[in-house]
């Protein structure tokens, strides 16, 4: 009913949401996660197959010869 713009009688008064302390904590955690992702991605690019960004998500084939990109 509210989607139709109708106001039902007896309902609780609608309040406006505001950023609180959890929002700040999430912001900090997101920043930490992003930093970790960047660092881990850079390290994974060095030891991953192919040497590119997507190589950081790949695993070396078990039977193939281990080959790394030249630093």
């Amino acid at each position, binding site marked *: 009913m509210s989607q139709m713009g109708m106001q039902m009688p007896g309902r609780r008064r609608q309040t406006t*949401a*505001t*950023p*609180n302390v*959890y*929002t700040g904590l*999430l*912001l900090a*955690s*997101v920043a930490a*996660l*992003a930093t*970790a*992702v960047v660092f*881990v*991605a850079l*390290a*994974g690019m060095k*030891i*991953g*197959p192919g040497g590119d960004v997507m190589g*950081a*998500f*790949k*695993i*070396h084939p078990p039977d193939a010869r*281990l080959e790394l990109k030249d630093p």
Partner: protein
Amino acid sequence: MHILTKFLVILAAVLSVLLSGLAIAYTSNADRLVTEISVEKARASEAQALSAASAADLARVRESLEQKIGALESELTQATQSYNELETENRRLLADNKRLDLKEATYEARIDDFSAQIDAFSKIVEDARTDVTRLQNEQLKSISKEIDLTDRINDLEGQLEVALETNRALQEQLVGLQDQVAQGGTGTTIAARANGRDSVLRAPESLRARITDVQKDVDNSVMVSINAGTNDLLKERMKVNIVRGNDWLASVVLVRVDLNESIGRVTLTKATGGGPIEIGDLVLAADL
């Protein structure tokens, strides 16, 4: 909940998933790397051991090769010396060869000269031989002619001697007949004296011959052979003397005369001190 909070929640969830994927891949790859590193370390240690063994072998091989190199260097030095000596010898031989070539050319020229001289001398010799042959033929003709003339002279001398003997016999016969006429005898003795069997001829003064054989005849008379005959102007009934040194040995009357041999009968020998007639005694002409 504020929209920013919702967005951060979603973003954090996404980052968490992303980080988890990266961490899984990173750990797996890191484990693989650790394994590979350990394997490579083992390989490296094996390679180092093998390298050490190879280095030892290489050192031995190098030492042996150095010894061989030293020996080869000494051989090379000797070979170089030999090469230098051979090169010197080769230069000397080449010089000798050039010198011999020059001598050969000189000798060939001299041989050509000698060949030309030989040809000229051959022609001269051939001409001389032709001349000598012609002269010999002429000389043979002259000798033949001289022999014919000598034979003719001998025949004429023989005929003259025979005529002289006949004349003498006739003179003796004439004297005998005159005696018989004077004494009134017969003619048988005259005929016996005039047959001329005991008369002898004079041998040529130039006769010089040797006794070649001495034999006794059936009537025990001594027969001798001499190395002279009609070629030495001897004839039958000629009287010759046999001498040895300065001693007269015997007188011989020839009974058979050939070209270069005659046989005579000994008619008179030295009484004492003469000795027997021997082969090699000298035969000379005798006075009548």
